[in-house]
């Protein structure tokens, strides 16, 4: 298998993931997002604060084509990256199959890229974030995300080194534990963002639950589709090799 195989498989799996994320986000996420926007508009009428001039996209477009653009683009981008990460992991994580190392990469990806950043800096609906702190919040979120990805890569590289000496159980324990210690420390040290104010708790909960469900669907479909595609290619290669060996033996 070549890097190209993994990239093509990753992009394809990412596209499926983007479609799944769109469907989940549209079905579960749009209702609380609409509620949040109507609350925001009530609020902005009271305080007289209006959106700055610029392009306005209708709510209908934002919640359909705009949302689909976002989920498909993120799906394809993550798919390509995860595909290539799986290509690097191939044959480097002990004696496991291509499908197994690929599944591991997707699982680590979900935890490091989506789940852990969400636990520290969860998604917020419109009307919750203060527009003046967007720079600060963006910096915090991406610093934490970057650290999480680096710590996860370091943990996996370390695990690959430790594996022959410690065995699977202790290696996984050490690597996962190491990642956890780094991230818990970082989460303790980095500032908390709380701009919720008097926003209704039930809407916030529904929005955040829909957001993490969207992310989980994206990563689940990405992982499952990529493992399926890699497995199919691997089987084809095995059949080809067997045929070649048979031909050579005649």
């Amino acid at each position, binding site marked *: 298998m*070549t*890097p*190209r195989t993994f*990239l093509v498989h990753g992009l394809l799996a990412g596209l499926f993931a983007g479609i799944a*994320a769109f469907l989940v*986000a549209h079905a579960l*996420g749009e209702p609380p*997002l609409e509620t949040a926007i109507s609350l925001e508009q009530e609020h902005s009428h009271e305080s007289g604060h209006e959106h*700055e001039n*610029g*392009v*306005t*996209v209708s709510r209908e*477009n*934002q*919640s359909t084509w*705009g*949302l689909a*653009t*976002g*989920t498909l*683009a*993120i799906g394809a*981008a*993550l798919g*390509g*990256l995860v*595909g*290539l990460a799986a*290509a*690097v992991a*191939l*044959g480097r994580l*002990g*004696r*496991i*199959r291509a499908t197994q*190392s690929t599944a591991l990469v997707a699982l680590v990806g979900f935890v490091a890229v989506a789940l852990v*950043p*969400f636990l520290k*800096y969860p*998604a*917020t*609906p*419109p009307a919750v*974030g203060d*527009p003046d702190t*967007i720079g600060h*919040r*963006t*910096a915090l*979120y*991406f610093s934490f995300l970057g650290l999480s990805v680096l710590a996860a890569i370091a943990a996996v590289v370390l695990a690959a080194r430790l594996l022959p000496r410690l065995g699977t159980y202790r290696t996984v324990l050490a690597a996962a534990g190491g990642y956890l210690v780094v991230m818990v420390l970082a989460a303790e040290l980095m500032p908390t963002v709380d701009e919720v104010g008097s926003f209704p708790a039930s809407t916030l909960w529904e*929005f955040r639950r*829909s*957001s*993490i469900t*969207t*992310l989980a669907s*994206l990563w689940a479909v990405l992982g499952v589709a990529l493992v399926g595609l890699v497995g199919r290619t691997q089987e084809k290669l095995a059949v080809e090799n067997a045929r070649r060996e048979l031909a050579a033996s005649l």
Partner: protein
Amino acid sequence: MAIATPAAPTVDVPAIPLRQLLPWLAFTALLGLLVIFFVSADQGAISIPAGNAIHEWVHDGRHLLGYPCH
């Protein structure tokens, strides 16, 4: 008398050499991060190009995929 050794449940998969992986990695990382930047952060904290058309278009995705928006 020889005892047949049970087949190992694991397999050896040849790794792709890093030298062969590197150009693919660099290209994908660059393009992938660029796409993620435009969907997740552009015309929020940083604006390239100026304006809010990209922000407005991917707005719902930005909120629901967990990126800081507004």
